[in-house]
C-alpha cells in the first residue's frame, strides 16, 4: 500500500504563471539544504544520551530530514557538539570542524558545550565557541529533546535563508580567521 499522507514543504517566494515558476537559485538551494541536513553527532557525555532519545522513536529527528547521521566529517553539514569538551578533546573538535566541507554549521547542545556549564574547572574548555564558530546554542543540562528540536529548526532557518555564496563573503572569512581556521 502506498502511503499518501506525506507532507511536502512550501515552495519559496517566486513568480509563477501557467507553465513556469521562477525564483532565485539561493532559495531553491536553501530549501533543498534545509530539509536534508546530515548531522555529525559529536556526542561526548550526558547530552549524548539525550541525543539517543532524540534519534529514538519517540522524538524522531528523522522527521526533519536528518535521518542520515554522517559519522564522517567529510559528508556532514551540521556539527552537533553534545556534552562536555575537555581541553584534551578541544583539538579534536577543531580538527573535525576543519575536515567538514563547506557549507557547515555548528550546534552546541547543552550548557557544557555552550559555556562550560557547571564545570568551571582546570580541565574543561569553557565553551566550544573558543575554538570553532557556533551558530545555535541550546541551553540546558541536558536540554530536553524538544529544545534540541527547536535548536535544529533554528539551524534549518539559517540554512534556508543563507546565501549560497556565504563562504566567499569577507565577513565569513574574517570570522574563520579569528579562529585561526584558513
Amino acid at each position, binding site marked *: 500500500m502506498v502511503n499518501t499522507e506525506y507532507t511536502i514543504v512550501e515552495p519559496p517566494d517566486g513568480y509563477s504563471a501557467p507553465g513556469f515558476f521562477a525564483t532565485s537559485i539561493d532559495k531553491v538551494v536553501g530549501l533543498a539544504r534545509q530539509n536534508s541536513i546530515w548531522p555529525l553527532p559529536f556526542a561526548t557525555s550526558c547530552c549524548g544520551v539525550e541525543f539517543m532519545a532524540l534519534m529514538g522513536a519517540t522524538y524522531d529527528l528523522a522527521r526533519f530530514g536528518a535521518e542520515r547521521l554522517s559519522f564522517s566529517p567529510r559528508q556532514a553539514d551540521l556539527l552537533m557538539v553534545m556534552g562536555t569538551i575537555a*581541553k*584534551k578533546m578541544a583539538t579534536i573538535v577543531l580538527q573535525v570542524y576543519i575536515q567538514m566541507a563547506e557549507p557547515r554549521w555548528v550546534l552546541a547542545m547543552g550548557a557544557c558545550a555552550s559555556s*562550560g556549564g557547571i564545570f*568551571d*574547572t*582546570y*580541565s*574543561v574548555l*569553557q565553551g566550544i565557541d573558543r575554538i570553532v564558530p557556533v551558530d545555535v546554542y541550546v541551553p540546558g543540562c541536558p536540554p530536553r529533546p524538544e529544545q534540541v528540536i527547536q535548536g535544529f529548526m533554528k539551524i534549518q532557518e539559517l540554512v534556508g535563508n543563507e546565501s549560497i555564496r556565504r563562504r566567499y563573503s569577507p565577513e565569513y572569512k574574517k570570522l574563520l580567521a579569528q579562529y585561526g581556521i584558513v
Partner: protein
Amino acid sequence: MENSLIIGKLTKRFRNDILFVDDSSDMLTVTVSHEVIHEVIRFLMDDETLNFNFLTTLCGIHYPENPLPLGVVYHMHNFFQNRRIRIKTFLPLENPSVKSITDLFQTANWMEREAYDFYGILFEGHPNLKRILNMENMDYFPMRKEYPLEDATRKDKDDRFFGR
C-alpha cells in the same frame, strides 16, 4: 573474623611499622610506614586467614600542614568473609615515592596512574607511570590543595560578585 585478629596479626608481623590503628570509624583503618606498604598489602592478600583478595580502590590525599603531607589510601576487601580494611600511608613532599602494587593487583595500574596524575605520587616499579586523565603537557598536580579549581582563562567572572 574480628578486627582484633587482624590487628594482632599485623602488629606481630610488622611491629613498629604499624604507626596507628583506628577501629572507631566504619572500617578498620591502619596507618603504616611507606617503606613496608608493599609487604603489608602482600601479607593481607596472601595470609590464609586474612585473605583480602580484592583491591577496592586506591586514592591519594593531601594534608598540606602535616610533616608527611601526601598520602595514599588503599581499600581492601575480603570477599569470603565480607570484611573490609583501609590501609593508609604517608609520604614526604620531596620525592614522594612508594612501591607500586601492580605486581599484586592488575587493577592498581590505572589507580596508581590516577594518583600520580592528581597528586604527583611516584610509584616505584609501575610499568607505565604517566598522566592518565589530564593532558600530558600539564606541569602541576591539580588535586593538591594549593592549586585552584577554576579555569584560569575565564574573564567574565568578577570576583566582587562572588564574595572572593
